């Protein structure tokens, strides 16, 4: 396991042993056989590394064949690779799984001597990592004893990566050897701060755009990172509004059409751009030598993410990378300072390890069966060598096999339609060749929200008449628009005209007041580690001197009017405002955990007859408002961790986020088809029926494997239940309460976000009622 910062030459180091071995083997009469596999999280990176490898190999006249295999590889080349494998194959985890599911996988992979796993830190603790770990366990069975080299950027704790890399045995804790690269030059990080004005809320940093523009002007090439696609669009627009020198500034995010993104990347590689506004789509990836400054707009969210982004500037170890952090509001000033301190101190966020997903295991087992009949005992023994599945119980394994075979329902209702059957020789085999086809069409663990194409209508053309494709946007966003609404996309203000089939049709408009696109993408929660550092900073007034004046003043007034909590305290403030009563607490655990907390608190307050009306959460705080005063409430009772029981389950069951998690698991597990053979299913059919399947399954078989997989997923990721649970434990006995006569300075940012969130369950009914009322109002207006 080689852990080193960017620019240290990790990738070449990973290949060196293979190059030496292959060179020693010579070219003469060697049968074509795969020697080394390289796995990268990005296909663009695989292609780039292949190019960088071919060059030295050619210079040394090494007789080595190097090829890539990605989703873009043409069928003819795939076919040729099968019968005439290259020495070194560069590919992705998804392609590896597909290759392993082929009937001739044993022949193809039997000769493998080495596997190089690049950017492992970006994979190991995710569903793609689960898929990769399972594929490696299969590969170990086919080519026992092959060498694995893992490459990773600097991480807080390399132990889980070291375990990931080697086969686990029950009762042992096997780890790969660790090689730690030397740190490079310390980065130069500055936080842009104005002593004149720092906004109370918002994420756009509009007030700082002139400074950002100036920083771009001083750089050769700058990467401008933002956290969401909506922010990317807005920032791009703001920059061009003041781009008096017409500097070439481009836009890059995941919704843009692929050829547009490739164009930007190519222009970047040629060095003709001065800046690219981008989201996490450019966090990883190929080296651009010319980038000499990284500008991060908004909250950094985590120290490791910040290090990754800073590393995108200047790929040389001995020169410092330069970064500018641009906070968009007061809390973000604190977060930026905390992140800078952490990075300079060389401290990074830890990651909570999630257990391997049962949905991913389902897909893997189906793939194994497609390759060849399997023995359940042997397969179980093989799977628990993969570190994410080391603790998998035999019962869960058997449940997964049953699920793959017949859906795993009680009473074995679907035995006669089984996809897998156990034959008299005791082996499980697929029941029909169609099963292998279905597996191939549904393989992969990346599930997108249902998307629609955005097409630009020609002048005077009706909706549906075709048009140039601009990109893809989540369907739920587009479905909420009415013809005539405007939104920003791809740097333009577009007017929504209508939806036909799988496309939303738009026209250009000069309307400067566009509705901000609220389509999703790239929302990371504030890391626990960074949250801790922010709380630490709040608790130490002597450190405030570094903060811009308005922020220091804000904290001092807070200290005077209320209090600033200690690093392990939870401050809970109550105060009246206009006709309502507020309760605001500051856990600093990220928006998702706060939303879950808000839901649970309002249920409790409801039972206490305090008549809560709604809540709003941001990354740092949670505000609840009610018709009755909550000041007299026993806060230790209210925040007791036993709230994570029935209430949580009841709420989860109805939550839209939870249903989306179920949909993802169902697609990965193959319960819902990603695509029907021959034709891509439209996203909207999938969304709608997955909710219904969820409802029916929950009612009739609440302990079904897929519901268990969904719960595990939601608890770890989407809803941050684990984090919430840790927080409730931490603050037990450490709740600091203040009853105030009016709103406190610290509460203002949270209150400014009020408007959207309401008590769930009732919210749906309110939305329907308000829609009807507004329709009636329109109708009755004379």
């Amino acid at each position, binding site marked *: 396991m080689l852990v080193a910062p960017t620019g240290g030459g990790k990738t070449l180091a990973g290949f060196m042993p293979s190059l030496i071995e292959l060179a020693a083997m010579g070219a003469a009469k060697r049968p074509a056989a795969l020697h080394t596999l390289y796995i990268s999280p990005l296909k663009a990176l695989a292609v780039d590394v292949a190019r960088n490898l071919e060059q030295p190999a050619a210079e040394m006249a090494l007789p080595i064949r190097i090829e890539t295999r990605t989703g873009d590889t043409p069928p003819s080349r795939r076919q040729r690779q099968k019968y005439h494998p290259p020495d070194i194959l560069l590919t992705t985890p998804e392609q590896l799984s597909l290759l392993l599911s082929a009937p001739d996988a044993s022949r193809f992979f039997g000769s493998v001597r080495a596997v190089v796993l690049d950017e492992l830190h970006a994979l190991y603790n995710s569903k793609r990592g689960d898929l990769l770990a399972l594929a490696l366990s299969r590969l170990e069975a086919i080519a026992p004893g092959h060498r694995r080299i893992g490459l990773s950027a600097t991480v807080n704790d390399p132990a889980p990566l070291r375990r990931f890399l080697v086969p686990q045995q029950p009762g042992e804790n096997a780890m790969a050897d660790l090689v730690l690269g030397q740190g490079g030059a310390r980065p130069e990080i500055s936080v842009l701060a104005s002593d004149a004005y720092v906004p109370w809320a918002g994420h756009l940093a509009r007030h700082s755009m002139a400074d950002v523009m100036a920083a771009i002007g001083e750089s050769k090439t700058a990467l401008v990172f933002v956290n969401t696609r909506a922010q990317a669009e807005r920032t791009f627009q703001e920059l061009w509004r003041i781009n008096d020198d017409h500097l070439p500034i481009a836009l890059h995010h995941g919704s843009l059409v692929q050829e547009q993104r490739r164009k930007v990347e190519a222009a970047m590689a040629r060095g003709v751009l001065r800046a690219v506004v981008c989201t996490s789509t450019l966090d990883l990836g190929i080296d651009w030598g010319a980038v000499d400054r990284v500008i991060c707009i908004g909250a950094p969210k985590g120290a490791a993410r910040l290090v990754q982004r800073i590393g995108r500037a200047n790929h040389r170890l001995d020169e410092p990378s330069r970064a500018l952090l641009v906070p968009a509001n007061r809390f973000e000033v604190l977060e930026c300072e905390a992140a800078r301190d952490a990075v300079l101190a060389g401290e990074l966020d830890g990651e909570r390890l999630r257990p391997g997903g049962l949905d991913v295991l389902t897909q893997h087992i189906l793939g194994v069966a497609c390759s060849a009949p399997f023995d359940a005992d042997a397969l179980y023994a093989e799977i628990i060598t993969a570190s994410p599945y080391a603790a998998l119980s035999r019962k869960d394994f058997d449940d997964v096999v049953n699920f793959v075979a017949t859906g795993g329902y009680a009473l074995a209702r679907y035995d006669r339609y089984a996809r897998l059957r156990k034959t008299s020789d005791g082996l499980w085999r697929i029941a029909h060749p169609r099963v292998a086809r279905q597996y191939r069409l549904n393989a992969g663990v990346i599930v997108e929200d249902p998307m629609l194409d955005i097409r630009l209508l020609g002048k005077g053309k009706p909706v549906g008449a075709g048009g140039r494709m601009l990109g893809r946007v989540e369907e739920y966003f587009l479905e909420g628009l009415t013809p005539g609404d405007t939104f920003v996309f791809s740097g333009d203000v577009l007017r929504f005209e209508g*939806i036909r089939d799988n496309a939303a049709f738009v026209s250009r408009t000069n309307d400067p007041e566009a509705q901000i696109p609220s389509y999703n993408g790239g929302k990371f929660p504030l890391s626990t580690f960074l949250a801790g550092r922010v709380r630490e900073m709040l608790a130490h007034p002597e450190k405030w001197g570094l903060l811009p004046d308005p922020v220091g003043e804000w904290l001092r007034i807070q200290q005077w009017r209320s209090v600033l909590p200690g690093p392990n305290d939870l401050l809970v403030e109550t105060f009246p405002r206009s006709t309502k009563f507020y309760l605001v607490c500051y856990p600093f655990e990220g928006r998702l955990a706060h939303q879950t907390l808000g839901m649970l608190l309002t249920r409790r307050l409801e039972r206490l007859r305090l008549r809560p009306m709604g809540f709003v959460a941001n990354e740092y705080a949670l505000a609840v408002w009610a018709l009755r005063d909550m000041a007299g409430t026993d806060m230790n009772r209210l925040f007791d961790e036993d709230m994570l029981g029935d209430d949580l389950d009841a709420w989860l069951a109805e939550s839209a986020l939870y249903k989306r998690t179920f949909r993802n698991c169902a697609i990965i597990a193959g319960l819902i088809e990603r695509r029907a053979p021959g034709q891509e299913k439209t996203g909207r059919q999938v969304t709608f029926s997955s909710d219904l399947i969820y409802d029916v399954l929950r009612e009739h078989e609440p302990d079904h494997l897929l519901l268990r997989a969904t719960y595990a997923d939601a608890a770890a990721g989407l809803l941050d239940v684990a984090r919430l649970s840790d927080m409730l434990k931490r603050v037990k006995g450490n709740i600091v309460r203040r009853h105030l006569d009016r709103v406190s300075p610290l509460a203002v940012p949270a209150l400014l976000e009020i408007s959207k969130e309401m008590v769930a369950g009732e919210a749906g*009914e309110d939305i329907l009622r308000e829609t009807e009322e507004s*329709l009636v109002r329109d*109708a009755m207006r004379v």
Partner: protein
Amino acid sequence: MPCVFETTSIVVNGETLLLDTAGALYWPSREALILADLHFEKGSSFARRGIMLPPYDTHATLNRIVRLFKTYGPKRIIALGDSFHDGEGPARLDGHARDQLAALAKAAEWFWIEGNHDPEIPLWLGGYAAAEIAVGNLVFRHEPAIGAEAGEIAGHLHPCASVSRHGRTLRRRCFVADGYRVVMPSFGAFTGGLNVRDAAFQRLFPQDWLAYALGGRRVYAVSGSVQALRRKKNEEAQPSSVAINTVKMP
């Protein structure tokens, strides 16, 4: 505290119909419960092709019908076609579902309209099967016909309405009605939907229509032409216009 549900009624070709939040119509003067697109055995239909959807959809759908039966006590039940997801669906019903269906067919006259998924309804299910039936001022058929006579009650299209407020989007099954005809939401547990903004609906409802989305407590008119509501206000007596009359029911 008693939960008060409000029932919305509409007038179609002179007949008053209640819109139930479960997605059913009730016709009080004929004591008829009307359901569209039940798609029984959709789960097992997919399972035959290797997509193992949960096998509980038929039970879920039947339980909802039983609940409606207890509420309204109808003398007749009209199922507007696609009652089974495929032609072999009836043969795949399990014992419990067969018993429940038999009990319902005994308690009320059951009319099976034939749909494109289930053109032939087996006799052993009980009740009557027909391509379409006319009762009073209404005609019941599976697929709505373009330029149909007034009084058509149909299904087939699975209408859904999307609404957006406060940055949230909801998608709900809905009735679409214009005073002359109704397209009903699908009732089956696994049935998907087609947005009412789709061209298919524009062809059927050239003007003055409203979409009534299914809420938890009542149906809500959430989309449609405002003229429909305005006309209702101005010409209270006009039977062909869309009306929203809300009555409270315990």
